[in-house]
């Protein structure tokens, strides 16, 4: 068996992918469940659930996944046991306390398989539905998002892993020394804490960030566990820069995984080797740690990827054959939970 680094693979449920079969109704839960179960059987690291604001144009409702992503994640968590589940949630649509709490809860529900995908691209349309018709300037959005993410991570660490005592006879449910207030007072938010959800089985939900422009890189380097980048032809953040930034913040080079977003073309079934080439080349040249494969929620497309492309990648020694642990952090080779 070939040794060496293995690539990380995520699939993004992307309703409006070029591969989408034409359909009037959105996919139902049963279809999405089968999709995610198939991805789990294939040993993929995680599924990313998009959470789009209303698309421009009137016919959007019929083409979206008809679920909000965090609620969908919770339901999917009960019918899977290994695969990571990451939901997008916007810093405009939520308050940091509520978002931290929702994801902490999802992480307990999934036994440590949850992640939050935070996009750094403001959607002006979304702001108009959340009582901010004037929107945010790009700079305000960035400073606000940075503060937001810092609060969420702080709340996730409010309870030590051994805080809960469950001491029925002694009447001590938790150890007060092991609960920490956040007491955050910042430019945009003031949050006292603590969260009313227990510490995650993997320490913290995985933080996935995307949509990074140059000034966002510091934020990502400080906080992100996973960074999604577009293919390098597109201007934007570069993996090497990101890792350098992360080092500058005292994080180890392996503490942030960079996944490159790839939309396989319609030729996937015909030439799986070409897709494998397209993934192997940037991975071997260390441009990324793996890939985020955009897919419509259609089983046939996932079937092609799993049955044709994955065996080819395994033959080339690029893919692990089974889940190394129980949590999403362990799949990704990140510290936390299992690793402690």
């Amino acid at each position: 068996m070939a040794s060496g680094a293995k690539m990380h693979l995520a699939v993004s449920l992307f309703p409006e992918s070029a591969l989408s079969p034409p359909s009037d109704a959105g996919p139902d839960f049963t279809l999405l469940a089968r999709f995610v179960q198939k991805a789990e059987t294939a040993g993929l690291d995680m599924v990313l659930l998009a959470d789009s604001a209303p698309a421009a144009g009137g016919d959007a409702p019929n083409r979206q996944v008809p679920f909000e992503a965090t609620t969908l994640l919770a339901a999917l968590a009960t019918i899977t046991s290994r695969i990571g589940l990451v939901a997008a949630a916007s810093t405009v649509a939520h308050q940091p306390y509520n978002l931290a709490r929702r994801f902490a809860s999802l992480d307990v529900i999934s036994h440590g398989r949850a992640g939050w995908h935070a996009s750094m691209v403001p959607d002006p349309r979304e702001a108009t539905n959340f009582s901010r018709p004037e929107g945010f300037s790009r700079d305000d959005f960035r400073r606000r998002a940075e503060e937001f993410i810092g609060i969420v991570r702080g709340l996730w660490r409010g309870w030590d892993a051994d805080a809960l005592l469950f001491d029925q006879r002694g009447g001590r449910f938790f150890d007060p020394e092991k609960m920490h207030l956040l007491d955050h007072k910042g430019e945009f938010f003031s949050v006292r804490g603590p969260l009313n959800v227990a510490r995650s089985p993997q320490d913290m939900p995985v933080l996935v960030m995307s949509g990074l422009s140059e000034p966002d890189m510091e934020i990502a380097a400080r906080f992100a566990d996973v960074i999604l980048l577009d293919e390098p032809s597109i201007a934007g953040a570069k993996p090497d820069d990101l890792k350098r930034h992360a080092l500058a913040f005292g994080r180890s080079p392996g503490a942030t995984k960079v996944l490159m977003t790839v939309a396989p073309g319609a030729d996937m079934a015909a030439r799986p080797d070409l897709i494998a080439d397209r993934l192997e080349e940037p991975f071997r040249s260390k441009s990324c740690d793996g890939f985020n494969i955009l897919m419509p929620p259609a089983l046939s497309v996932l079937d092609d990827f799993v049955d044709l492309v994955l065996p080819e990648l395994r033959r080339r020694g690029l893919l692990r054959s089974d889940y190394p642990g129980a949590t999403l952090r362990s799949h990704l080779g990140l510290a936390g939970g299992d690793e402690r």
Partner: protein
Amino acid sequence: MTAHRRQMKLGAFLWATGHHIAAWRHPKAHVTAGVDIEHYIQLARTAEAAKFDMIFCEDAAGVREADINIASQTSRSIGFEPISLLSALAAQTSRIGLVSTASTSYTEPYGLARTFLSLDHLSGGRAGWNLVTSASHIEAANFGATGLRPHADRYERAREFAAVVTALWQGKLDGVSGPGHDGRSFSVRDPLDLPRSPQGAPVMVQAGASDEGRDLAARTADVVFTAAQTFEEAKAFYDDLKGRLATYGREPNDIKIMPGVAPVVAATEAEATAKYEELQELIPDDVGVALLSSYLSISDLWRYPIDGPLPELPASEGMQSRQALVIEQSRRDNLSIRQLARHFAGARGHWRVVGTPAQIADELEARFEGGAADGFNVMPSYFPGELDAFAVLVVPELQRRGLFRTDYEGSTLRDHLGYETADVSSRL
């Protein structure tokens, strides 16, 4: 054909290790409930097998107790966030309604409408939203530096919030083709990006029993959750609320009033009493007094002699209805702070019934037939044992009397409640 008898609605109110403040210390309570999703799945299946109308979850966006030493002696500082919890349960159940409390004070209507509609789709039309305005300073401190909004402001915001959510669910808010919503607290432009609800719209539940709370319920609610100790209190609330419906062009039957009930049931009365006493013995005094003072919105109740009477209290900016209820009880039964705290800790001011299945069924029947309730939100003392006991002992007794269904009539929560597919927007 048998005559169609009016039947009561039942909610299974799930909370932490149990509704009794000391539940978690009971040897038969599941002490790790707050981190055990499988436990909740099992509770949901129990409630569904017993044909409960709904599972009901409370909510607070913060811990419940400010004093950390008190908090550390209860199991309520950690648990699941209810919308994620109910979404998980949606995938593991098929008939039972799924109702979560959510505050109008710390969320936005577009996001809340979208999230509950998503839960509604995941569950095939079984979702409900219990509207509350949040009365806790602890929560307020997680959402800014300005503190708890005054009672009247909270309700003003809640009225606008409810109107926007309902319009979104009804597909009647569309700022692209017409005017959006541009109100005092909120502005919303787009319709929701999800299909319409399988039950027309998620069910609207309301808890909050002050004058403003009742008025909002009369306008918007399909179900009202309330706390009442005595038959007279329950009846007065019931008549008052039903009487308000005509103002909004609604019929008395358009709203189901479901007070909380905290049963302690056993095969014999002696066993039931012993079970209750066993729980009461597990309450530390300081925990009981702290819980009581949090509902009374008084921070220094511990300064008063514990065996003396309740002091005079200023009007609350928090939960006015519960404060009034507690004061009334302390006067009526001439209770000391300790006695009141003990009593309150068992069910937070809700109605407590201790007895055999027949005795409990008698009590429920009396309030149901006496025009003081359309059903009950059942608050088991500890889980899973006391939910099991209610399901196995009391539900069959109610069914035998024709007071409760033996099978679900339909597939959506509105079906269970006997409502047509929703059209509520005209009232707003």
